[in-house]
C-alpha cells in the first residue's frame, strides 16, 4: 500500500512533537528524537533539516561513550525567536527577554516614570529596546510580547482603566501605541494573574493545579488558578477582592468606590490609618512597616490590623475555593514579618489547614508570568495546531542563561 500523503496537519503535528521533545529533552540526537516522538527516521530528518534552516535548532556536540558511531546532538537555538515580558507596576517597570527554549536571557528594571501616560509608554519602549540591544537581540527577533498591568484593559479602546496608581493611561490606546513602538503586537494581562502564572512556572507553586495568589502592595488583589486554569470570571473581574466587605462599613461611600477591604489595607489605607491613630507623617506604607519593626507602637498596631484583615480575606478565599496552596505576594504581602502575622491569624481562623507560602519570585513574579504567556504564544505561533486546544507545556526553570 502506498504511504498516505503527508497532509499539512500531519506535518504540523510532526513538527510540533519534535519541537516539544527538543523543548524538554535537549540536547538530543535524531535517533532519540525519533524514538521519543515515534516518527520515522526519514520524517525526523526532514523536520530537523527544516528546523536547522529556520534557525530553530543547532548542533551542540556529539554523543560519546557508546560503541559504534557517535551521533550529533541538537538543542533549540537561542536565535530561534524571542519573547518579551513587561511588568508595568505603579512604582517599578521591569522587562525581560527569553529565548524560544524558555531561557531568560536578560532582565532590567527601573522606577516607573511617575508622569505616567505617554511618558510611561515611551519608557517601556526605551527600556525594552535597550535590553534587546544590550543582549545582541535584534528587536525584529522578538515575536511575542506580553505586558502585566494593574487595572482592567478596555478591549475596545486599548486603554488601561481602573488603575488609579498610574496616571494617564485611561484615555490612551496603550495596546496600539506600544505595539507601534515595539514593532510587534502587545498583549496586556492583569498583573496579579500574571504574577500567579510566574509562581506556577518558576516560583513556589510549580506543578500545582489549585492555587490562590493573594497580593498586597499598593492595592490588594487575588489571582485564582483552578483545575489548571486561571479564573477570570464572567466579565474578567474575578479576584477583585478589594471589594470584599471586610474591615470597614461596606455602606460607606469610600467602600463602594475604592472597595471596603482596599480602603483599609491598600497602601493609602495603611498610611491613613497610621495618621489617624496619631502616627507622625509618613510618605509610604513601607515606612509604616519599617517603623513597626523599629519599635513604633502605633505603627505596629496598624501592621497587626492590616495582617488581621488580610487573614480574614484569605479565610474567605479558603472557605470559597479550597486551594491546595495560598501564596502571599506583593510588596507588602511577601514581607516575611507580615506573612508570619497573617499566617498566625489564619491558623487561628481557618477551620481547614491550608499550605501557605510567600512568593519566591517577589517583585519578579509579574515579569516572569508575562514571559511565560509570551513564550506560550511564541510556541503557538510556530507550532500551534488548530485541532489542539492544549498549549505546549512550558519547560521547567532548569536553566537560567545556561549558554551565556
Amino acid at each position, binding site marked *: 500500500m502506498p504511504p498516505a500523503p503527508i497532509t499539512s496537519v500531519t506535518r504540523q503535528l510532526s513538527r510540533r512533537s519534535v519541537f516539544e521533545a527538543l523543548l524538554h529533552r535537549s540536547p538530543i540526537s535524531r535517533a532519540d528524537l525519533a524514538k521519543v516522538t515515534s516518527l520515522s527516521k526519514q520524517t525526523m530528518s526532514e523536520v530537523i533539516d527544516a528546523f536547522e534552516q529556520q534557525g530553530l535548532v543547532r548542533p551542540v556536540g556529539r554523543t560519546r561513550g557508546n560503541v559504534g558511531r557517535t551521533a550529533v546532538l541538537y538543542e533549540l537555538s537561542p536565535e530561534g525567536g524571542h519573547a518579551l515580558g513587561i511588568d508595568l507596576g505603579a512604582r517599578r517597570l521591569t522587562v525581560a527577554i527569553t529565548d524560544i527554549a524558555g531561557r531568560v536571557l536578560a532582565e532590567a528594571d527601573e522606577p516607573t516614570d511617575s508622569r505616567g501616560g505617554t511618558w510611561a509608554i515611551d519608557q517601556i519602549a526605551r527600556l525594552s529596546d535597550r535590553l534587546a540591544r544590550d543582549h545582541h537581540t535584534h528587536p525584529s527577533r522578538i515575536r511575542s510580547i506580553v505586558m502585566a498591568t494593574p487595572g482592567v484593559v478596555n478591549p475596545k479602546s486599548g486603554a488601561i482603566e481602573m488603575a488609579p496608581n498610574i496616571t494617564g493611561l485611561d484615555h490612551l490606546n496603550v495596546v496600539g501605541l506600544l505595539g507601534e513602538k515595539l514593532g510587534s503586537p502587545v498583549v496586556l494581562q492583569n498583573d496579579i494573574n500574571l504574577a500567579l502564572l510566574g509562581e506556577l512556572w518558576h516560583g513556589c507553586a510549580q506543578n500545582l*493545579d*489549585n492555587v490562590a495568589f493573594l497580593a498586597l502592595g499598593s492595592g490588594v488583589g*487575588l489571582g*485564582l488558578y*483552578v*483545575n489548571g*486554569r486561571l*479564573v*477570570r*470570571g*464572567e*466579565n*474578567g*473581574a*474575578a*479576584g*477583585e*477582592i*478589594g*471589594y*470584599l*466587605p*471586610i474591615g470597614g462599613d*461596606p*455602606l460607606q461611600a469610600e467602600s*463602594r*468606590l475604592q*472597595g471596603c477591604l482596599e480602603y483599609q489595607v491598600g497602601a493609602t489605607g495603611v498610611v491613613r490609618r497610621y495618621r489617624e491613630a496619631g502616627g507622625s507623617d509618613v510618605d509610604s506604607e513601607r515606612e509604616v512597616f519599617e517603623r513597626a519593626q523599629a519599635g513604633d507602637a502605633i505603627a505596629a498596631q496598624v501592621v497587626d490590623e492590616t495582617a*488581621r484583615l488580610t*487573614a*480574614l480575606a484569605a*479565610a*474567605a*478565599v479558603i*472557605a*470559597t*475555593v*479550597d*486551594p*491546595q496552596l495560598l501564596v502571599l505576594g506583593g510588596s507588602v504581602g511577601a514581607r516575611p514579618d507580615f506573612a508570619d502575622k497573617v499566617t498566625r*491569624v489564619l491558623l*487561628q*481562623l*481557618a*477551620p*481547614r489547614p491550608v499550605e501557605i507560602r510567600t512568593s519566591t519570585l517577589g517583585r519578579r513574579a509579574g515579569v516572569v508570568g508575562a514571559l511565560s504567556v509570551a513564550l506560550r504564544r511564541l510556541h503557538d505561533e510556530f507550532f500551534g495546531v488548530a485541532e489542539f486546544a492544549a498549549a505546549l507545556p512550558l519547560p521547567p526553570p532548569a536553566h537560567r542563561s545556561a549558554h551565556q
Partner: protein
Amino acid sequence: MTRDAGYCFAADLGGTKLAAAIADAEGGIVTELNEPTDPRGAAYVAEQIAACAQKLAHTAGIDVTRARHVMVGIPGAVDPHTGRVSLTPNITGLDDFDVLGFLRDRFGPDVAIENDVNLAMLGERALGCANRCRNAAFLSLGTGAGLGLLMDDKLFRGAHGTAGEIADLPIGRDPTDPSAGGTFELEVGSLAIVDRYRRQGGTAAATVRDIFTLLEQGDDVAASVLDTTARWVALAVVTLQSLLDLELIVFGGSIGVRPELYERVRETLPTLFSRPITIAPSRLGDRAGLIGAAWAAGQALRRNSEAA
C-alpha cells in the same frame, strides 16, 4: 432502541429528609419518593438508601440491577480524590462511614457521591434557572449554609472537596474575636434566625417557618430579623461576587427560596456593590438536588456507554 439503555438511581440525602428517584438513561426522573432520614445514624441511613432503590425499582416495574449508575448527594464535603466524606454534622457518624464503599458493595462499581449543593447547582444548570450559565453558584440557606460552584461550566470542588463550604465565611460577628466566635452560618443558619427573633423580643416562634408566618401577619420583629439576616446574606453574596465574578447566584434551600428573604437581599445589593449582581430563586426548589443527581447519573451513564 435495541439494547437496554438502563436506568439510574439518584438520591439526595439530607439531615431530616431523604429523597430518591429512579431515572431513565437520560437522567429524567421516572419515579421518586421522600422519607424522613433514619435518625439512628450513618449505617442505618446507608441501608435506607439501598432500600429506597428497591422500593423505587418495584414501583417502576424494573429489576434494581438495571439501575446502571448511582449518584448520591451528601450533605457535606466529598474529597474528589478519595471519596472520603467530611463536615456532615447533620448525620451521626457519616464522617467515619465509608459511604462509597457501602454503595459499591450494593450497586456495583458505577457509583458516585457528590456534595448535595453541587448537585443542586447541576440541576439548575440542566433544567432550572441557570440554563446556559457557565459561571454560577447555588447558594443554599436552610439549617446551614452551603454553596455549589460552576466555573467554566464545570463543577468546582476545590483541592479537597471543600470549596463552597461557606459556613466558615468570615462574615458576621468578628471571627478573630475569641469571645464572639461567629462566622457566616452562625448569623444565617435557621437556629441563628430563631435565636435572633427571640433576642429581639419576639415571642411565639419556634422555627423559621413560624417567623415567615408572623411576617405575613405584620409582625415588626419578624421583619427586622429578616432585614438583619438579609444583610448578612448580601455581604456573603458580595464576597462571592468579588472573588469569582459570577453570572448568576441561585438562591435555594428552605430559607433561601423564600421571596421574603431574597427580595430583601436583592434590594440591599446595590448599596453594597457598584456593579450589578444577578440573583434568582431556585426554579427546582427542594427537588434541585435530586434532579441534579439524576441528571449527573444520566451523564455518567452516557459516558460509560460511549466508552464501552
